[in-house]
């Protein structure tokens, strides 16, 4: 116990004075969480996960603009902006804000579009009543000025298609409604008497509902914070491999390890002291990341992290990941022959494990071969467990398999380190 407590105290003292290590352990993941969450929030906006801001320039000032606005607002996918400050926006100004990248899309309704639409629809309704003896005439080409959708060329194709489809659907609804009304009027005139009003409802009868599969549990839409806070917190925790292995190499190079090995101490106590000290650091790191996700990100205008009621499970996942990270760091520190070897191998292996584990891009967008490899990344186990709780409202039972993988990884790495140290202590 004395070895354990003395080692914890010594390791924490050393870490407190290691400014470079402090930067790697606390400031780097903090900056990563902030930057990546903000960037990804923007990406999510740009790919439709959050309402897209669209500029609406209505030079027609009639029923059409109002109808478009009403239906798009009901649709919820687009956030319509009509004014810049207090002023209405001109066509020229609208194009400029799209070119400047302030808006990705701008819907322009030319003057007279509404009136032209009604006139065209009325004319077609009249022409559609053709005597049986006369051949049908082809419909005259549309002369309605129409709507123009200006978009930033940098907008991704899928995203542009989504906006175009959404707008087309709204326009189709409006046109259908107008056609129904025109048809009703024409009937009335042709039949010479008032008929029951014929009005087409533009609302769809068949609807498509979105439902994400979460194994019978309720689910939350993933936000940038829910993806990035656990991902980069895990990355930061596993980056402890650099200071942990560095400290062990320095101990060996400076002769302190040689001195320690001649002391009446247990190897297990020495290792446990180091593991606990670094787990404390990892947990402090994680709490800081969660605090940033929950409080700092909303202040910067993006959605914050919602931990939910299963916070004890979140704590257990973090603890398991911290143990795995520390075990790996100690193993690298024991097996590496030089500081350079430990720091380069340690850092590169963590970046690779993070990439494979879905920290940088989600695993499901990776090629199949990479997806198969990603199952061996401890960061994937940790991230899956966090996502299970944050997005799928998972429980201790559902994250159990990933916790078991992390625990086995910790056991394996620490056993290798212990075996190697024991071998060197016995002078074999």
């Amino acid at each position, binding site marked *: 116990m004395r070895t354990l407590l003395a080692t914890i105290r010594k390791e924490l003292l050393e870490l407190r*004075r290691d400014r470079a290590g402090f930067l790697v352990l606390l400031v780097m993941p903090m900056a990563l969480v902030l930057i990546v969450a903000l960037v990804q929030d923007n990406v999510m906006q740009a790919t439709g996960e959050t309402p897209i801001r669209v500029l609406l320039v209505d030079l027609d000032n009639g029923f059409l603009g109002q109808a478009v606005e009403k239906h798009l607002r009901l649709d919820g996918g687009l956030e319509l902006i009509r004014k810049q400050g207090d002023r209405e926006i001109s066509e020229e100004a609208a194009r400029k804000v799209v070119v400047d990248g302030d808006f990705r899309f701008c819907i322009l309704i030319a003057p007279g579009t509404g009136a032209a639409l009604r006139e065209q629809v009325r004319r077609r309704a009249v022409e559609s009543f053709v005597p049986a003896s006369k051949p049908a005439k082809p419909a005259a080409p549309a002369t309605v000025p129409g709507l123009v959708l200006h978009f930033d060329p940098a907008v991704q194709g899928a995203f542009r298609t989504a906006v175009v489809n959404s707008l087309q659907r709204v326009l189709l609804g409006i046109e259908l409604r107008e056609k129904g009304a025109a048809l009703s009027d024409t009937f009335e005139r042709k039949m010479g008497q008032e008929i029951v009003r014929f009005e087409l409802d533009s609302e769809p009868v068949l609807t498509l509902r979105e439902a994400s599969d979460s194994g019978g549990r309720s689910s939350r839409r993933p936000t940038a914070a829910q993806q990035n806070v656990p991902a980069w917190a895990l990355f930061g925790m596993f980056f402890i491999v650099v200071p942990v292995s560095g400290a062990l190499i320095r101990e060996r190079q*400076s002769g302190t390890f040689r001195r*320690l090995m001649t002391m*009446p101490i247990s190897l297990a106590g020495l290792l446990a002291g180091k593991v606990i000290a670094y787990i404390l650091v990892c947990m402090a790191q994680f709490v800081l990341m969660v605090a940033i996700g929950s409080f700092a990100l909303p202040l910067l205008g993006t959605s914050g992290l919602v931990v939910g009621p299963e916070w004890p499970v979140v704590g257990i996942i973090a603890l398991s990941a911290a143990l795995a990270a520390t075990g790996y760091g100690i193993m690298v520190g024991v097996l590496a022959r030089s500081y350079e070897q430990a720091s380069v191998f340690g850092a590169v292996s963590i970046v690779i494990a993070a990439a494979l584990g879905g920290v940088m891009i989600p695993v499901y967008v990776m090629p199949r071969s990479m997806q198969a490899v990603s199952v061996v990344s401890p960061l994937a186990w940790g991230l899956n467990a966090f996502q299970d709780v944050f997005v799928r409202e998972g429980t201790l039972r559902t994250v159990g398999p990933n916790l078991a993988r992390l625990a086995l990884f910790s056991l394996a790495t620490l056993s290798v380190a212990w075996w190697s140290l024991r071998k060197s202590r016995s*002078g074999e």
Partner: protein
Amino acid sequence: MPSHGNVPAGREPVRGDATETGAGEEILKVHRLVKVYRGAATPAVDGIDFTVRRGEIFGLLGPNGAGKTTVISILCTLLRPTSGSVTLCSQDTQRSPARLRSLFGLAPQEIALYPSLTARENLHYFGSLYGLSGRVLRRRIEECLALVGLSDRGGTRIDTFSGGMKRRANLAAAILHSPRVLFLDEPTVGIDAQSRSLILENLKTLRDGGATIVYTTHYMEEAENLCERVAIMDRGKIVAEGSPRSLVAAMDGCVNLEESFLRLTGRHLRD
């Protein structure tokens, strides 16, 4: 007298006056010690024997690569010998290394301290590992700092110390738990005359307090002044053993230990 490992091929080891070996209790006994590193063509230690008595300062001398550090590592239970035995305080070091570790202290060749910690924090850590705590630990820390002349620098980080101060702090860490045997691997290398003089005085004080000291050095003058007995090693064997005075007397035309040493080990450079 064993003749097997303590002689270069075809030569008898030079022996000093046997009466100068003292008649105290044998605290360290090395018997036919051999160490062959894996893959090495020749043994690093080649069947050596020597005995150290209580309260003695025993010098292990030799050129680079003679096998001194390997011997110290085996004595400290850090290395397992290929054959032979080491008995420390009447116990075989291979059978019960864990039990013996509280009986000796080691000051390695390197500055085996944590650079970002202060001298006092380093001593507190190592003292705790030796099982000291509370008032006893604090008292021992202050005593050891005073002994090595670092009382007023105990709160200073090791990485700001001069070479001499680091060496003194390194020694303090080895004597915290008042060991019965102290192993010092070149404790005065690379430091100024003042620090060296202080360290040598400290060793005499420790010896006078009952500690037995085994130390390696390249400084012949230092060994001549400090050690009751020395063993000169070359190529893993002991080529001479005895009091410095008797070894000088045994070599015709030599006036000091350095001349005797060069006569025994040769003047050619070692890697």
